[in-house]
């Protein structure tokens, strides 16, 4: 399978302006992230809140301008595109947002919201717009009779379905899912995940799935990237692969096990995530890591792969 998306050394540094009473400070929200996403695959990105996974999604779609690196989408170098070219390309790379409650303009009816992608891209569908809207709503499991409703009249799960319908209206090839279920009830989460699975099979979509829920990512994705403080610390080639980074291991052990016979003591992670402003030298995880040695506190480990399972650790498991 050819790569639909190639990300190389993507970085974003946010700088706070200095003044007479404070120094200018900068933080690396995303630091040298590289990966390939093959057409039709699903890559999951996991990490704690604040690790830069949502920023990574926005950098890839160029909703935030990267400070460095490259993004290749289907052979196009995105960062070389003018804003007009970029607007055209956006039709093929869509995003589903974390907060469905504010993802639709409160003054738009559902049909207007779902028809907006066509309006914005100047695309005239072959069929009447009402038919197109009805089919999109049906495709995401909504009753087309809802098309005259306003967002405040429908539930969170229904709003997220509208968000998915809007994203799919122009038949994109890449869908970036930024915690699409994080603000929904558990039962609704399962429905949305089921819908996303069906849509991927039916439409041949490629997903970049961002989540803090490792068990969900393991269920849903083909490959997993684990992020810690802006860096990818481990790239699991499949969901069965055992953790090689101590951080991934702790994450995996902290997932809840429903079977009481398999319950074990969850060892909570000691310490705090260091401030991204004043990163200590060496491995960012060293202060919380049981395996840390003197080397870990002086030298940052590079992401290196043997046998396709890359890990950024001096003492991999």
């Amino acid at each position, binding site marked *: 399978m050819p790569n639909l998306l190639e990300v190389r050394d993507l970085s974003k540094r946010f700088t706070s302006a200095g003044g007479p009473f404070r120094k200018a400070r900068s933080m690396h929200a995303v630091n040298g992230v590289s990966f390939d996403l093959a057409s039709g695959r699903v890559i999951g990105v996991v990490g704690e809140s604040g690790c830069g996974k949502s920023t990574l999604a926005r950098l890839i779609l160029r909703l935030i301008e990267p400070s460095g690196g490259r993004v290749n989408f289907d052979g196009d170098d995105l960062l070389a595109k003018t804003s007009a070219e970029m607007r055209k390309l956006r*039709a093929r790379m869509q995003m589903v947002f974390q907060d469905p409650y504010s993802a639709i303009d409160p003054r738009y009816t559902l049909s207007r919201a779902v028809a907006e992608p066509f309006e914005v891209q100047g695309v005239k569908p072959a069929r009447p717009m009402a038919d197109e809207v009805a089919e999109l709503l049906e495709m995401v499991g909504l009753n087309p009779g809802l098309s005259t409703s306003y967002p405040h009249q429908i539930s969170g799960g229904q709003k997220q379905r509208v*968000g998915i319908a809007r994203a799919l209206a122009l038949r994109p090839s890449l869908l970036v899912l930024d915690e699409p279920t994080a603000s929904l009830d558990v039962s609704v989460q399962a429905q949305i995940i089921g819908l996303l699975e069906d849509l991927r099979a039916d439409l041949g979509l490629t997903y970049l799935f961002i989540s803090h829920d490792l068990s969900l990512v393991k269920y849903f994705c083909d490959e997993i990237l684990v992020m810690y403080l802006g860096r990818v610390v481990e790239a699991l080639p499949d969901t069965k692969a055992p953790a090689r980074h101590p951080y991934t291991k702790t994450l995996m052990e902290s997932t809840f096990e429903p079977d009481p016979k398999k319950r074990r003591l969850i060892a909570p992670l000691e310490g705090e995530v260091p401030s991204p402003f004043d990163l200590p030298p060496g491995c960012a995880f060293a202060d919380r890591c049981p395996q840390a040695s003197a080397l870990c506190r002086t030298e940052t480990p590079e992401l290196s792969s043997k046998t396709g399972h890359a890990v950024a650790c001096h003492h991999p498991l």
Partner: protein
Amino acid sequence: MAIRSLDAFARMSIGRAFASGVGLVAGGFLILLVLVAIFAPWIAPFDYAAQNLMNANAAPGWPHLLGTDEFGRDVLSRVIHGARTSLSVSATAIAISMTAGMTLGAAAGYFGGFFERAVMTVVDLTWSFPDILIALIFVAIIGPGLTSTTFAIAIAYLAQFTRLTRAQIVRLKRETFIEATINLGAKPSHILLRHLMPNAIAPVIVVGMLAIGDGIVLEATLGFFGLGAQPPTPSWGAMMSSGTAQLFLSPWVIIFPGVAVAITVIAVNLFGDELIRALDIRDRLRGA
């Protein structure tokens, strides 16, 4: 069809503002006042400029229901025509101010950066000038009259509309649906005109409504100082000004225009409050 459109009106926010007793009385009075202003020449019992020195300073009675002024002109007719001056000057000024303020505020809020700082600095500067001083500047440039008054009122309220619109746009810009629409490939014009402005406009309209009340007072103030409407054009402020000379001889000359200003401003404010309640935007008005 008639029932459907009536129903639609009741569901609109402006319709809901009429639903309470206060809203109905205040709103009804304002509608009546607008009608009076529009049809002033037909409603007024006398010519507002017709002098009758033989009957000067006549007390309220028949046929001059509200009495006559020092030139024997009918006070009722002048108050009715004065409504025309007060309402049209205030409404025109606020319309100019609102249009300019919304454009500047939206552009400042949307584009940000140096442009935003430049616009807001200039706008804040206009706010620091007393209204009377702004009016005097215009009088010095284009001479006294209603045009000067209109521009002075427009500039006096510019900062309020600009700041409020900017605050709305800055808040809305962070909403997910804006990012989602940008991600669909929307141009800035689409974002501004189809999403940001329609969502920002409600509180601006309410503040505009309330500002019309303040504008009437400001117009009366400028008229009182002789900077506004020039004789014989009747304006509530100018009438009160000329009435001061006969304050003890014929108090009705100053009382009735004053009462007209007071009732109108109270009605505007009460109706504005009902509108704020109907639109449920009290928390969004703090940005101004």
